[in-house]
Structure formats: C-alpha cells, structure tokens
C-alpha cells in the first residue's frame, strides 16, 4: 500500500471517512447522548481523547507484542482489553488530577469503553498498515470527526425542540433521517481526498 501523508489521513478521517457519517461506527452513544449540545461536546471531547490514547497504545502493542508473538488472531481480544484497562486508568487519573474535567467527562468514560468507533479505528489502522504518525493523525482526525458529527446532530436536535414535528417522525427516527442527510452531504467532499 502506498504511503499516504499523515495530514491527508487527518483531514480525510474528519470529512470523507468520518467515523459516523461514512463508516457508521459509534452510533449508539451518538444517538443517545446528542439531545443536548453541551453534553454532546463533553462526549465528543472524551471520545477524541480516548481514541488518540488507545490507538497509540494499541499501535505499540500491535507492533511490539502481537506481531513478534505471531498472535494476530488474538488481536480483537487484546485490543479490547487494552481499551478497557486504559479507560479505567484514565478515569482514575482524571479524577485525581483534573477533577473539573472529570466532572464533565467522567460519566462518559465508561460509555466509551464499548464505543465501537474506538475499536474500529484500531482495526482500520491494522488493516491499512499505518505507521505511527499515520495512526496518530488517523485517530486524532477520527475523534475530531466523530465530535463534529455528534455536535452537528445535537445542534440540529436542539433547534428541532422548538419545531412542530409530526409525532410519528420525532425522536430516533428523525435522528436517523438527519444523520442520513448529513452523510449524503459529506459524500460531496469525497473527491477532495480518499484514503480507502
């Protein structure tokens, strides 16, 4: 596979290969925590932070543990264990040293452990054989892209609170429709850069 510039990967993962809008990963927290802009921002921030940390550590684990031991078939289990352990430690550390930040993000951290976007980014990184800097930029971009998407949905849903909607469409149904329209809009960017 040709080496793609980390910066291309960064922008592509925000816009054209957005985790939510083109891969439909991390949907459950995206739908359930998007009714308020403020909490959506908190979750977006937490996802970005955890994504970058887990991807970097999983890259190290993949490169220096899984590959040398030839246990690629165990990568799913190992990646998930690493993610879970990391989120635990992150929560404890945040509670200790950044209590204000923990007060804002703390409740989202356990949710993130089971957010499939996190595992998804790690697995894409393995499938696409990214190097360290590529993985770093890919995870950062994916996190920001996820954050962007949930903030857009939350902003629209806040606006819609005052709108007169037909009862059958309001709630999750409308969220799916909005997400679909947003995804179509993002396809419009696909000519700019491609990574897959």
């Amino acid at each position, binding site marked *: 596979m040709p080496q793609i510039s980390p910066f291309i990967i960064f922008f592509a993962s925000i816009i054209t290969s957005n985790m939510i809008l083109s891969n439909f990963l991390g949907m459950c927290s995206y739908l359930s925590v998007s009714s308020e802009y403020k909490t959506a921002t908190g979750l977006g921030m937490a996802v970005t932070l955890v994504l970058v940390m887990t991807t970097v550590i999983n890259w190290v684990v993949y490169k220096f543990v899984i590959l040398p*031991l030839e246990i690629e*078939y*165990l990568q799913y289990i190992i990646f998930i264990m690493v993610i879970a*352990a990391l989120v*635990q430690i992150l929560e404890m550390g945040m509670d200790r040293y950044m*209590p204000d930040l923990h*007060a804002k993000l703390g409740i989202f951290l356990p949710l993130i452990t089971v957010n499939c976007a996190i595992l998804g980014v790690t697995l894409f990184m393995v499938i696409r054989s990214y190097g360290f800097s590529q993985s770093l930029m890919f995870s950062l971009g994916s996190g920001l892209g996820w954050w962007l998407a949930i903030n857009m949905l939350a902003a629209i849903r806040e606006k819609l609170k005052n709108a007169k909607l037909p009862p059958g469409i309001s709630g999750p149904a409308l969220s799916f429709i909005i997400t679909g329209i947003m995804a179509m809009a993002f396809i419009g960017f696909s000519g700019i850069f491609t990574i897959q």
Partner: protein
Amino acid sequence: MDFSIILRTVGSLALISGVLSVIISVAEKVLNNYGTCELDINEGQKKLSVQGGSSLLSTLAGEKIFIPSACGGKATCGLCKVQVLEGAGPLLPTEEPYISEQERADHVRLSCQIKVKGNMRLMIPEELFNIREFNCTLESITDMTYDIKRLRMKLPAGETINFKAGQFMQFYTKPYGKVKEEVFRAYSISSKASEHDYLELLIRLVPGGICTTYVHTALKEGDQVRLSGPYGDFYLRGDCEELIMIAGGSGLAPIRSLVYDVIEKGLPHKMRFFFGANTVRDLYYMEEFAQIEQEYPQFKFIPCVARPEPEDNWTGDTGFVTVALQNQVDTGEGKEAYLCGSPGMLDACIKILKEKGFTDQTIFYDKF
C-alpha cells in the same frame, strides 16, 4: 493441531491480561489513594478520620452514619442528599437532575456520587446523625397494668443515646412460636432524655399483635433486644406559656418523657396532663405523677376514668378525656397541645382543641 499454538495463545493472553491487571492495580494504588481525610460534620460537632477514595455515602456508612438511600448509590433515587460545604468539587452531571436551584445554592449534593478526596465539611441533619442500632440488654420487664408492660433496657457498654423527649424507637422481635420472621414496631421512649445509657418503653398487649405478643409472652429479663432510632418529630416546641398534654393507655410514654424534660431543663411552661383510662385498672404511674405534682406547682395531673366501678372509690374526673378537656381548657391562646393515643381518642380531642382555637401549628400528636 499444533500444540504450541494452544500454548502460545493461552500464554500470551495470560501474559497480557496479567500485565494489564498489574498496571490497573498499581494505578489504583497510586491514583486512587487519597490518604486519610478529615470529615468535619455539623461545624465541628463530630470529626472523623477516614480513608479517602470511596463515595461519601459508603464512607459515612463505614462510620455508622446511615444516609437514607434506596438505589444503593446509582444516582437514580436522589435520596442520599447531604449538605457539603467544602471539599466536594463541582456538581456532576449525574447529580443535576436531583438538585434543585435552592439546593444548589445550599451546597446540597448526592452523597453516592461524590468521592472523598480530601478534607470535607458536611452538614448532616441531627436526626440522621443520631439514628443508630443498639443491641440492648433487657434489665427488667415490669407489669404496669394488666396489659401494659414496661421494658427497661441497658445500652451496650460505652454506648449512649441522645434523643429528644417524645421521639420513638423501632423494636425488632426475634422469630418465636409460629412467627418465623423478624418484625419491627415503633414505640415511644418513656424514659428521661437525660438518661443516656438506658431506654424504657411501655408496651400494651394488642390481641393478635405479633410484636406485643412477643414482648408479653416470649421476652425474658436478660434477653438481648435490638432497637434502632431515635426517630420522629413529636418533641417539645415550647413556643408558648402552657402545655396541654393528652394521652391514653401506653400513650403516656412520650408524655412522661416530655414532662421530665421540661422539669429537668427548668423550663417555665405550665403543664396540664390529661390521662384517659377506661377503668381504674388501666391507670398507672399514678404515684409518680402525684409526686411530681406536689414538687412542681407548674405541673397538673388530671387522670380521667370513663367507667369507674362504685367499689373503686374513684374521686378524680369521671368520663372521657374529651369531657375534661371541654370543661377545663378555655382557649388555645398561648398554649401548645401534645397528644399521644389511639386514633379515635386523638381525633375527638383534636376536634375539641380546634374549636377552642388551637391550630395545626400548635397541635402535635403521635397516633398509633
């Protein structure tokens, strides 16, 4: 199948999970270790040194201070509210739904959600602070009348109780006879509030009652009895000149405690105690109250017997307690009424008191 693959799989999984668990335990030790924290409760009334790192709710429970909680610390019931003046950090999103604007201004927090991370200053309502469990020894069980027994119980060595005169305790039975389960019932404390290492309860036999039957038939001197408390908001307000006290049967218990409280504290209130009984057999503590009446002119004891027999030579008030009340209390002005007894008697008395100008703010009662 290649045996080495199995070995490698198991080995590497064990290695990785082992390494991860070691990292987590070390992190827990380092990051979650907040050392010893000082909890200052009710402006220095009680100071606790506790190990930090757990929720305030469980930390307090470990110190035998029980904050009511129904959900067990999941932030879904919103009952475990505690005022935290210092050391709680910012309000958490999990608390927000349960904390009103007013409570936010008063620094009220959910004790299950906040973690003890350093020294804290808390305010805990006196009642909660006081509620405890006591494993007492039954020192004596005395017949007061043919159907009322007095239980005098000694608190465990070194333990004391602080209660407001008029409050009640919960009494736990042990399984006996056909009753296979523990039950608990509430009984008013009849002993003096100044007595901190003993508790007295007056228990009337209710035909078919599980707890009272247990007390009257199964309980023996020297037995261990489990109590919790004190509970209740039936206690002296004292914002008046005269206290009108009304009781029937074992309702005498909290009134006795109240009378002693007023006398021992040297309060200026005049007191009139109307004690209703059906027959002369139902009267008890007569000498004691007559004695108090003699020693303290502020106290008047008015026993009323509804149906005295001719051979009783009853010289006191005859008829229901409501009659005496009707004739002897002129107005509700400057008075507070304290009632304890059966619902029927209480309702009749409250009706008369209201006619005389007592209000919901000056009538206090314990119905049973």
